[in-house]
């Protein structure tokens, strides 16, 4: 399995560490095991898929776009990822 460069260099976990192992577990039907590897992916992956769906939607969805694509929401999203990054390494 590919190694995380950040983990190899620093010894700390990156926000995505365990993502592949978790995906592997999910694909084998073992949700509990996936949760142990990277619980964050259960929240953040659906968010990512929502953004892709809105982007690819044929309807303009102006209100939804204005909220989801606003800098405040985007920076909050990045903030949440950074917080998870810190918390998991405590």
């Amino acid at each position, binding site marked *: 399995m*590919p190694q995380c460069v950040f983990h190899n260099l620093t010894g700390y976990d990156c*926000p995505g560490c365990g993502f592949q192992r978790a995906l592997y577990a999910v694909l084998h039907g073992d949700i509990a095991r996936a949760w142990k590897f990277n619980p964050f992916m259960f929240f953040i992956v659906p968010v990512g*898929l929502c953004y892709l769906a809105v982007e690819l939607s044929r309807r303009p*969805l102006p209100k939804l776009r204005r909220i989801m694509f606003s*800098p405040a929401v985007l920076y909050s999203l990045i903030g949440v990822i950074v917080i998870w990054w810190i918390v998991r390494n405590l």
Partner: protein
Amino acid sequence: MKIWVYLNGNQQGPYTLDELRQLNLTSSTPVWYEGLSQWMPAREAPATASLFCSEPVTEPVFSGSEVKMSLMDDRQPVAGARADMPPAPPTFIGWSVFLMICCFPIGGLLGIIFSVMSGNAYRAGDYTRASRLSESAEWCVIISIVLGLITAPLMVALF
């Protein structure tokens, strides 16, 4: 009534309805005037639809920019942007967020940052900078997708 049109890759106008008759508008030429919430094909905008009623139906000739315009159906005149500015260049925020989370974090993150900066530059009235940043965001998205497509089969193989 003042009507702006998007012809030959440029925003032109304002024109009156009579002046528009002299121009070679196709029914798909994007037009905008005060009261429209977004650019729309000339045949669909109430004020310009009458230009096309009496004409025989011809296959619309798309120039590159018109095709691009018709894809940007959610593009609207943005508050703060001057009336003589072309519509905002596309941003790639949805793609960037998805790629940041599911594919290639650094590329996606850069895509988000460039997209947001592009929007800010447009609102500040700097169209050249906005379109340059929009292009940078597009490249981040393309590179992220390519890297993702290269690494995905690798992971599947490892499983």
